[in-house]
């Protein structure tokens, strides 16, 4: 019993050195690791699906008169990759990058700037140009209909219904 504590020396000796040499060597990360996300600006349509799914609001849509900006703030990201699951055009890709330390707060942002279209009827700014094209490609609505803002669509529908029953039954916002 009394010599038992000394066995620790044997354990320590048999283990040898375990310390990794990082940062002088590659870090020990598995292929499964979830790191920073990368947004492909060539694919992103600015629909905001990722913004809705993001639990900590690390992805945000900032809207101004002419532009819609998708802002990714890695300083608040929890690396859950829910945005990757929900992106309809696979514009978001996961990486294994975790070396994100910086001394400037602004370094932590990634911005994707989208231009906005205006409503054909009332001239108010609404969805992004890419989004409009995406909708026209993927859904059966006509291009004219896709370029009208939801408010005007509602108004048009109400007018049409009150004038006479016309079939715009597939209408959705």
């Amino acid at each position, binding site marked *: 019993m009394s010599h038992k504590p000394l066995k620790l020396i044997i354990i320590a000796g048999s283990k040898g050195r375990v310390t990794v040499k990082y940062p002088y060597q590659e870090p020990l990360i598995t292929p499964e690791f979830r790191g920073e996300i990368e947004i492909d600006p060539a694919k992103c349509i600015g629909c905001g699906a990722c913004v809705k799914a993001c639990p900590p609001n690390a992805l945000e849509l900032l809207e101004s008169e002419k532009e819609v900006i998708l802002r990714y703030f890695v*300083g608040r990201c929890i*690396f859950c990759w829910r945005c990757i699951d929900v992106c309809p055009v696979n514009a978001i890709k996961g990486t294994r990058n975790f070396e*994100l330390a*910086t001394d400037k707060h602004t370094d*932590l*942002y990634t911005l994707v700037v989208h231009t906005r279209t205006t409503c054909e009827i009332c001239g108010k700014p609404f969805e992004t140009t*890419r989004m409009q094209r995406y909708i026209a490609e993927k859904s059966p609505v006509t291009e004219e209909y896709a370029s009208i803002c939801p408010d005007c669509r509602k108004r048009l529908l109400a007018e049409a219904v009150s004038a006479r029953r016309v079939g715009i039954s597939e209408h959705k916002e």
Partner: protein
Amino acid sequence: MSIKSSILKRSIWVFHLNTGSCNACDIEILDALTPFHDAERFGVKLVVSPRHADAMLLTGPVTAEALPKVINAIEAMPRPRMIIALGSCGCGGGIWHDTYSTIGGVNKLLEILKERGIVVDAVYYVPGCPIRPEALLYAVALIKGIVSKKREMKIYKAE
């Protein structure tokens, strides 16, 4: 810059300040100090009083209840003082950045410190949720100039 470089020459002694984090970053800090990653290779030592510290490892979103104590602890640090904000809570308030009982991360804290005339000489941000021990080692290596900065602001124009 001169103040900062005077920190860089020395071994960085750190004080661990948990301002209401979930513990994940805190156990990873401990992990960075244990045999596998061994941050003491770079002279990083965890000290028990802010008065001995060069840098503050700040984890958590700074809760309303912890705020006065956090300010006291930072004020107790000698100049030049450095804050290393760890994890998504420290850097940006994390998942609870806008709830009623947090103040939302280090930037708001810096504003409050400035109002009270407490100078912070340098701030580093280490994102991660939680940070990997390697991410902390990388930050230390960055402060000491062993590695170069990889992350910078990116602005893309998508028509």
